[in-house]
């Protein structure tokens, strides 16, 4: 039995135990902690240099269906290890910060979402990569509809919108995956196994690759809130309970990007490079960065602003995907990790403020720093990370993506390509982020304190999840090689940088 299987099923078992009456908080903390220890152990001993093209470590495979050949196969390489690490860290922080009275449903939902994300990142069979992602659908739906913030009619509407968007998005994705599997399988056996698909040499015609890639881009893109399929995301995160928002925005949303990097990019290189696909992607991601940036600028509540900013930042990761150079793709993975940690920290702080202060309207708040120095510093970490300040993790990812788009192989001496123009425009997004983040920071924490709204630093126990996330941002930001070392070795030989 591979340790990865334990990592996937431990949260499910813990959720079941809580449902059966085990004490909620100790059980879920135990499961999250054990998972983090296992993943950290794997990361510590991970040596990616021995892995060839499409090879994974800690593999284990159990056939569940003969033909179409589906097996419950798990495995790990640099990219999935980084995302599994992110999942483990954010899960621990998310379940730690749950303070509700009847907390069992919150713990169960968080654990199930976490298990879904772990399963999706660690499976190496297309069927289970897809299937595990959907595990989160019902918990997310119920948590937003029943325990979300705001009035009941509104949160139900948000829950429906989210579920239908994600459901239809996954059906589009399923159609794309089915087309991919059917087109890639020569002969009688239809295989869902990622390893054998990656090692396959026979080529699929460019036109077929293009439309399958585009279908996958729309399907995965909807799950990542790619503009113009993004409108579910911001209300969902603003409405969802804090732990669900942390896990969904921080971890689960990365699934769509992971799928594009893991499945679409390496298997359909001709589709990714086709000019019309490339241009469509560039336009959509500019929509994320600039349109959503301006939308974020006009939010008057902290939760709405954070939710929209999370949609906006997806644009940068898509830019890394569009560039497709090794540097830019590594930057994309780096930014996925960094964004996951920073948005989880932001939502954790936002939830704490909502509970204590009772409102998140910028106009009603001010001077919160007086009684809450620690929260002020931590919010600063989250805000500066999100802007992309050097020394915090997001900067490393963003600079790699931007530099990656100006790779010598992509540059022509005469003129800039549409990709490079997109980068130049996207850089303005950094300015927009700086404006709204710093403005929010100033309004909330500094200036004159409004009467009636006080924020206090949490007790020692509740500091742990916040400090954990901030520490991760700082460590990875100052020493990105901690993570890059894991990717480097895995991708050096991979098809991914197939320029």
């Amino acid at each position, binding site marked *: 039995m591979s340790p990865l299987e334990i990592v996937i099923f431990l949260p499910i078992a813990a959720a079941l135990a809580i449902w059966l009456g085990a004490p909620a908080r100790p059980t879920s903390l135990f499961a999250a902690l054990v998972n983090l220890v296992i993943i950290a152990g794997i990361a510590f001993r991970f040596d990616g240099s021995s892995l060839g093209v499409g090879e994974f470590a800690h593999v284990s495979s159990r056939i*569940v269906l003969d033909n*179409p050949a589906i097996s419950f196969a798990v495995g790990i390489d640099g990219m999935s290890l980084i995302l599994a690490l992110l999942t483990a860290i954010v899960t621990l922080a998310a379940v730690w910060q749950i303070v509700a009275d009847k907390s069992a449903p919150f713990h169960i939902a968080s654990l199930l979402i976490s298990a879904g994300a772990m399963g999706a990142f660690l499976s190496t069979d297309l069927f289970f990569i897809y*299937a595990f992602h959907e595990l989160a659908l*019902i918990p997310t*739906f119920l948590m937003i509809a029943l325990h979300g913030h705001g009035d009941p009619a509104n949160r139900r509407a948000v829950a429906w919108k989210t579920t239908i968007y994600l459901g239809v998005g996954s059906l589009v994705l399923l159609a794309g995956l*089915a087309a991919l599997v*059917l087109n890639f399988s020569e002969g*009688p056996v*239809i295989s869902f196994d990622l390893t054998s698909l990656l090692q396959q040499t026979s080529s699929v015609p460019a036109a077929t690759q293009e439309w399958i890639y585009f279908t996958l881009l729309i399907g995965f893109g909807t799950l990542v809130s790619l503009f113009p399929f993004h409108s579910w995301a911001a209300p969902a995160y603003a409405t969802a309970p804090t732990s669900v928002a942390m896990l969904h925005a921080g971890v689960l949303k990365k699934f769509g990007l992971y799928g594009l990097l893991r499945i679409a990019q390496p298997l359909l290189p001709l589709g990714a490079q086709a000019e019309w696909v490339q241009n469509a992607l560039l336009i959509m991601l500019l929509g994320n960065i600039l349109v959503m940036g301006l939308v974020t600028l006009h939010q008057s509540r902290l939760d709405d602003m954070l939710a929209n900013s999370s949609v906006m930042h997806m644009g940068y990761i898509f830019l890394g995907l569009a560039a497709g150079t090794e540097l830019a793709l590594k930057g994309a993975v780096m930014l996925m990790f960094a964004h996951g940690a920073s948005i989880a920290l932001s939502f954790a702080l936002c939830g704490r403020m909502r509970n204590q202060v009772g409102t998140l309207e910028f106009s009603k708040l001010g001077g919160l720093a007086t009684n809450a120095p620690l929260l002020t510093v931590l919010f600063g970490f989250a805000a500066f990370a999100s802007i992309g300040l050097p020394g915090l993790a997001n900067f490393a990812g963003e600079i790699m993506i931007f530099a990656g788009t100006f790779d010598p192989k992509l540059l022509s001496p005469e003129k800039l390509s549409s990709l490079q123009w997109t980068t130049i425009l996207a850089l303005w997004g950094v300015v927009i982020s700086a404006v709204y983040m710093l403005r929010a920071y100033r309004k909330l924490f500094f200036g004159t304190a409004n009467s009636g709204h006080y924020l206090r630093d949490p007790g020692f126990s509740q500091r742990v999840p916040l400090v954990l996330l901030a520490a991760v941002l700082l460590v990875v930001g100052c020493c990105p090689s901690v993570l890059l070392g894991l990717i480097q070795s895995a991708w050096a030989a991979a098809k991914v940088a197939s320029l």
Partner: protein
Amino acid sequence: MSIFSSEVFLAVLGIALVLVSVFFPKIPTRTLAWIGIAGVLASLACLLGASAAETSLPAFVAPYYSLDSHSLFYKGFALVITALVLWLITESEKTLVNYSLDGQIGELVGLPLIVCTGMMWIASARDLITVFTALELVTVSFYVLVAYTRKSALSLEAGVKYLILGAAATGVLVYGIAWIYGATGSLTFEGISASLRDPSTGKGTLLFGIVLLLAGLGFKVAAAPFHMWVPDVYQGAPAPVTAFLSVGSKASGFIILTRLVDSLVISSTLVSVEVINLLLISAAITMILGSLPAIFQTSVKRLLAYSSISHAGFLLLALACRGSTRFDLAAGDVVAFYLGTYLPMTVLAFFVLCVARRHGRGDSLEDLRGLARSSPLLALLMTVAMASLAGLPLTVGFLGKMMVLMAGVDRGYWGVVGCAVLSAAAGFYYYFRVILTLYSGDNSQTSEPIQLSLLSRVIAILLAAAVIITGIYPRPLQRAISGAPAAALTTQR
């Protein structure tokens, strides 16, 4: 005991149970039901022990009766659903007694066994006359079962509707059989298939017969445009009977359709294009007309009726993917696979309805509000059933849908695949609406906790486990369809 004699045994047992309930009314119905279940399980054991190679058939049935992997699967299917329906009847005994005329429900225990005999016989039928008689054995028994709770006006209405429309469908079916006999000079599937290769066979005559036959069978499986009866009958019939109708009756219709399409399409191309097109058109309409009205339903039973229609659409699409698909499951196997996935989730949903009814909750969506507080277990079981019916991955319902969609994509039936995606998307809404209702409701409502007996808890949890485990590990189901004996499952790989 051979398979054939176990069928005779079940019919005799069914009649005996009815007689016993009449002459010895003191014997509790529950006891009779468990005797029936024991008989069914004994037959199932003898079926699992046997194999298709077993040829000890009496000479007088051999021309009409055959055994292959499909017939074995469908026989097992009939036995499993009959046992589960008898269990559902014991679960809702109180409700049934309340609404029956004389407080006696003995026939309700005996008749399912006779239906089961009919369904098992259909699975082995080699010619259209045998199909017809066995199908009538099933249908006539259902006329009684549907109208059994006669104190309820809805049940009576359902009985009348089912009787009149069912009789009309039977007429159409016989008429179609007559035309096919006129065109091909044969009533056996092999004979019809052989005569298609004969150039002198009249295509027009044959097609007319086929259309009539498909219409008659379309009624049985709830395929559009012959689905109008389904919502009313499903709503009016007692919940266990509805479950039986939804799963058992549908399966019987589809084994006949599978054999018919096999004999009409695979061996020759005389009428294959027309038959495939008829199936595809019907599949597309069925999916849409099943899932869109489901959005507006307020009764869970009616919702499940429309859901049953929409599932029939997926089955028809599978059937239209004629010949072999590129994966191991041929079109007929995909149909069987889909039915295999459909059984546990549907029975589970009806179990929850039966128990809710017993505890004074009705079938409307509002009546299920806050069920999670009365019984977390029931709410979880219903959640699993609904997630699976919606086709959420890691449940068995997803695999069935995925197989059908892949077969459709492989054949390039894009239009119908599009309808299927639309239907599945609508499904997310109406199944999730049930889930949301289960868990919502404010704390002010008083809801007395619902207690389940240990046995029913165990069976229900096993069903839910089957939904999830088969959703993750479908290999045994595939093996059961392709005919590998049970013993081979554990030894291979």
